[in-house]
């Protein structure tokens, strides 16, 4: 790193990780360093290959935060927004006992990626988020939340005005590029909403409703979305009509069977892991002591699974 040639560090770090890891499910301290190096060297693909393993064991929580944060950025670089969203979500909801700068940054990016990918953002936290995060995260990322609010109105010019106004704040967070992507995704969002209301629509109308400048641009957007598989539509070039279709997947093919079958296998493995974790949690003395303590408040026959001696 001191040589300012991060590219050279990528190879050796990758081998080091593979050797140190007791199993692909472990997170080592080398992981976040490796990802950071990849980011600096812009070797996103190699970094992404590490991200594909699921992590079950973490030694140091800080490693985890950094790993997820850098991992999310690499995914953004690769334009895999779904995986980036997942990683940022992990950072935000990870257990933390005090406020964490990594989590704050991650939360800002989380909002932006959610707007780009899902075209919406919900500000309620899932219940497994730590209470520390729940209370404090919003305070640190105020402009982003306002951005999300104005995004949900669907008005592009308003959004652009807002971005202009707060440009330096976004720049300070090194997020301006992402914000610009958010603005351009607004068109797609509007078009997508149209599919839910109309069966056919002319390109001119699309342009008007979605506040796109010209039908030509509208056609371009629609075409992009069809190619990405985000909507199903046919464009009739003669009269400029766009026809929105249903998902043509009939679930009749053997590939679909294989796909579902592999998903079932994955979820079976996951289920086994979850049950073992649940069982080990039930035997955890800390948990048992807490449950035992609260037991007095409840009726006698509410839950009997705690022996008397844990009643502190």
């Amino acid at each position, binding site marked *: 790193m001191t040589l300012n040639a991060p590219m050279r560090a990528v190879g050796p770090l990758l081998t080091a990780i593979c050797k140190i890891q007791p199993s692909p499910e472990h997170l080592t301290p080398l992981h976040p360093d490796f990802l950071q190096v990849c980011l600096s060297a812009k070797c996103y693909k190699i970094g992404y290959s590490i991200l594909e393993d699921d992590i079950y*064991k973490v030694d140091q929580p800080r490693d985890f935060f950094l790993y997820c944060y850098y991992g999310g950025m690499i995914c953004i670089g690769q334009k895999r927004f779904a995986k980036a969203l997942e990683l940022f979500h992990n950072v935000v909801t990870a257990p*933390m006992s005090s406020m964490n700068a990594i989590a704050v940054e991650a939360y800002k990016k989380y909002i932006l990626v959610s707007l780009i990918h899902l075209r919406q953002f919900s500000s309620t936290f899932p219940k497994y988020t730590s*209470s520390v995060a729940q209370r404090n995260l919003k305070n640190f990322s105020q402009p982003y939340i306002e951005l999300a609010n104005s995004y949900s109105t669907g008005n592009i010019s308003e959004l652009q005005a807002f971005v202009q106004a707060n440009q330096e704040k976004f720049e300070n967070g090194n997020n301006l590029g992402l914000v610009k992507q958010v603005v351009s995704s607004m068109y797609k969002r509007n078009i997508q909403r149209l599919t839910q209301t109309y069966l056919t629509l002319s390109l001119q109308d699309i342009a008007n409703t979605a506040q796109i400048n010209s039908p030509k641009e509208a056609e371009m957007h629609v075409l992009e979305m069809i190619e990405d598989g985000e909507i199903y539509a046919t464009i009739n070039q003669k009269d400029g009509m766009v026809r929105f279709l249903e998902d043509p997947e009939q679930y*009749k093919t053997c590939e679909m069977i294989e796909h579902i079958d592999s998903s079932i296998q994955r979820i079976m493995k996951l289920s086994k892991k979850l049950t073992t974790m649940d069982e080990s949690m039930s035997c*955890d003395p*800390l948990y048992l002591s807490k449950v035992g303590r609260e037991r007095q408040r409840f009726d006698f026959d509410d839950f009997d699974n705690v022996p008397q001696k844990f009643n502190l």
Partner: protein
Amino acid sequence: MFITPTSTVRPNRPQFLKPSLDSSNSHNRAMASLKDPAQMASSSSGLTFKLHPLVIVNISDHHTRVKSQSQPPSADSSSSTSTSPSSRVFGCVIGVQRGRTVEIFNSFELLYDPSTHSLDRPFLEKKQELYKKVFPNFYILGWYSTGADAEESDMLIHKALMDINESPVYVLLNPLINHAQKDLPVTIFESEMHVIDGIPQLIFVRSSYTIETVEAERISVDHVAHLKPSDGGSAATQCEIPPENSLLRQVSSLLRRLPAIESEKFQDDFLMEYNDTLLISYLAMFTDCSSTMNDLVDKINIAYDRHSRRGGRTAFI
């Protein structure tokens, strides 16, 4: 050879052939009537006969066994058909007679004594006693034999049985496999007193019958009928590989579960239904997983209470 009964459950075999008791050649006809099926008189007793498939399977099994035992086991198939004449097998049929309906349920074998042209009487009585204990309702209704047609000597047997049952039935199974004939090669004869040439004589007349079966019987008979001496068995006798019965059973059950039709429309529907089932099980697993996860999260929240300030980080596994 093993005769497999056709799978039709109720073949109606009307055998109503016009009785032609022309007095001019009645004598010839009387002799010929026993041998010529086309001019056999039809039964006029008005009894309805119901035959259970078990009887047919029993008779054919008896015949096959005797036939295969009478031949030397090392004879190859080419000589078996030509040389030995098919010996007849005999036995008794038992069942129930209710009013005008005669229902033949079961049968058992009897030894035929060629010298006295009669069936083994003491054995028959012993068997009858045993069967009476198990099936108190069943009576000896008659007897059976194999062959192409009823013969004169059969009448002697028939008369001998008349002291047990005043009007016994005679079930005849034709063991020759005739592929042109679609019906079962089973005929039921009754004896009737007909006046031929002024002499009252007992002759056989054909009767119609229906096949009667209960569900359990149908399944088991079907099952037995589909057993064929497989080549795997012959490999076993040659001591190549010991046949793994449980494995064979699994294989056969797997084969039976495969779809039997091969049309495109069927493929579509089949795959769609298969996908639906897979999706449902996927959904079920999902729900199960989410519920476990929910419990786990609750436990973690209770155990590692965030409200209290703790130094350092809690272990996160």
